[in-house]
């Protein structure tokens, strides 16, 4: 080996500002969009939007979408799609409803069983993709139709003809696990804050915001865990490698089959978590739950910087992507725009937010 021990500092590297370093991370790419959208609504929307209760209001759908979006992002980084997660929300909701209402199981059994059911279907998706070598797009597309149809047939079977299964709220009432999956957290704290006047309350004295909806907590926790896994564990490295180039990853000894199957199980479980939360919250489930959510989850991931071709992206990006999407869809109701213009507005804002991210990133990092 050459005896030299060159100074670590290479003369061929220019100094780099902190801003540049941060913007280079895909994790932070979507922040620009969040800022832009926030500014826009600060200027146009009713001030109620950015009160505490307004924020909870748009964060709730963002959280539900985001849980799916983060899972979809991980799967996309791993190089695959799952188009069946929207239908899985309906299907898992049905299964969960049947367990709690028809069979009367307590949550401690109903939830793990629902999850296991979903994971099994996810694994099946993955196994078919690996076995046949078909694109996951087409395999999970079949899943989209089949699970949606199965939810319909199942609901009719278990309700005696209706496409809506009701009574879940009553069935889980008082279950010790229910607070983990429904309602609001920190209600005591918020009640106290309201009583001392720190946060607004209704005339009745109840705080306007009774607490933080649990899905928001789940959303934040899942985003953190997913980021940790992707960035700080060997498994995360395998996910990136698998999506970047399956062949190269396999040749380098990455267990790509295991990675892919686990990711499919993960998306299915994320879908059933959303199903459980929304079903308990709503107290009912129907055959159209989660309609088009697979699509929105992919949108979320892409807004957050994931490449459709795999191998690149981040969970935090999807986190911000979901917030952008949630803010834009709910935000319009706080403005004076006519509902007819809703879709024009939604499309325009999405494009603006993403273009803005991009311009900022290029400006900062000096890419051509």
């Amino acid at each position: 080996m050459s005896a030299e021990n060159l100074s670590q500092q290479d003369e061929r590297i220019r100094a780099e500002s902190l801003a540049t370093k941060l913007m280079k991370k895909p994790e932070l790419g979507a922040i620009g969009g969040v800022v832009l959208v926030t500014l826009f609504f600060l200027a146009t929307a009713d001030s109620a939007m950015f009160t505490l209760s307004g924020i909870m209001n748009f964060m709730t759908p963002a959280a539900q979408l985001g849980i799916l979006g983060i899972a979809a992002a991980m799967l996309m980084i791993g190089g695959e799609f799952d188009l069946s997660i929207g239908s899985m929300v309906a299907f898992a909701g049905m299964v969960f409803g049947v367990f709690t209402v028809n069979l009367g199981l307590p949550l401690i059994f109903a939830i793990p069983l629902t999850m296991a059911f979903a994971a099994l279907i996810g694994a099946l998706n993955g196994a078919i993709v690996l076995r046949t070598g078909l694109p996951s797009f087409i395999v999970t597309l079949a899943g989209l139709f089949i699970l949606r149809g199965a939810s319909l047939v199942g609901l009719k079977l278990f309700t005696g003809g209706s496409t809506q299964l009701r009574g879940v709220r009553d069935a889980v009432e008082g279950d010790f696990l229910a607070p983990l999956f429904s309602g609001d957290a920190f209600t005591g704290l918020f009640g106290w804050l309201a009583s001392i006047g720190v946060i607004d309350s209704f005339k009745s004295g109840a705080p306007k915001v009774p607490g933080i909806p649990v899905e928001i907590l789940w959303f934040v926790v899942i985003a953190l865990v997913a980021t940790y896994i992707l960035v700080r564990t060997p498994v995360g490295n395998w996910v990136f490698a698998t999506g970047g180039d399956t062949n190269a990853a396999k040749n380098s000894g990455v267990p790509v089959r295991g990675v892919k199957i686990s990711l499919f199980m993960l998306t299915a479980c994320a879908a059933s978590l959303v199903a459980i939360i929304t079903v308990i919250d709503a107290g009912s489930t129907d055959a159209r739950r989660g309609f088009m959510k697979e699509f929105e989850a992919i949108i979320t991931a892409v807004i957050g910087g994931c490449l459709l071709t795999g191998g690149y992206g981040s969970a935090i990006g999807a986190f911000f992507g979901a917030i952008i999407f949630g803010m834009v869809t709910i935000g319009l109701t706080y403005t004076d725009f006519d509902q007819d213009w809703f879709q024009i507005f939604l499309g325009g804002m999405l494009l603006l937010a993403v273009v803005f991210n991009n311009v900022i990133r290029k400006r900062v990092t000096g890419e051509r």
Partner: protein
Amino acid sequence: MTRPIIHMESIKKHFGNVIALNGVTFDVTPGECHCLLGDNGAGKSTFIKTMSGVHKPTAGEIFFEGKPLSFDSPREAMEAGIATVFQDLAMIPLMSVTRNFFMGREPTKGRGLTKRLDIDRANEITMEEMRKMGINLRAPDQAVGTLSGGERQTVAIARAVYFGAKVLILDEPTSALGVRQTSNVLSTIARVREQGVGVVFISHNVRHAMAVGDRFTVLNRGQTLGTAVKGEITSAELQDLMAGGQELAQLEGSLGGTI
């Protein structure tokens, strides 16, 4: 001669209607460097891919340390102690140098739930191993896709050498390397061979092959032309064999026999 680590017997490999290998026999013993030579398209890469678990042979047998064996995946071959530098390098352009280096065999610290990538140590090792090969990386988190051809090849070699256990397979490792890096790689081959590792070395450069090879097997159009031991064959003879026995084009400047 000691018992071979890997012995491949009459390996055939067909891709659809293309016959890439038509009965190749080959072995490598501990502490030797066995060179696999041959014209373009002779089947060298295909052959070492069957050796490292990427392809399953259409026919033929593989013995690993005397036992018949067939690797179902490159991971299995790796776990058995075979490290390979593929001709296409098997790297992910979008990932950083360190992450590519340790792909599939990441160092961890902590235990249980806090078990996580030891990214600092990984970075350090990567910089150090690359420096040994003569490349001073700017930063270990540079994406491999932005490296120069030679830098990229060096990452693949350094990785295989670092993890190499019993057999080290190198498919044209020096093709994109500069003179300094080449001489480092060749001396690395010499070093690991002394440590008892069996090396399979593919090259088109007769001089490189002669410099480190102990035995030379020449493939031609999917078949073995024969194996020679070092000292029994001259550079010129070897070169003739590699060209498939066909005469070479005449050059005004002349290349003095060996290219």
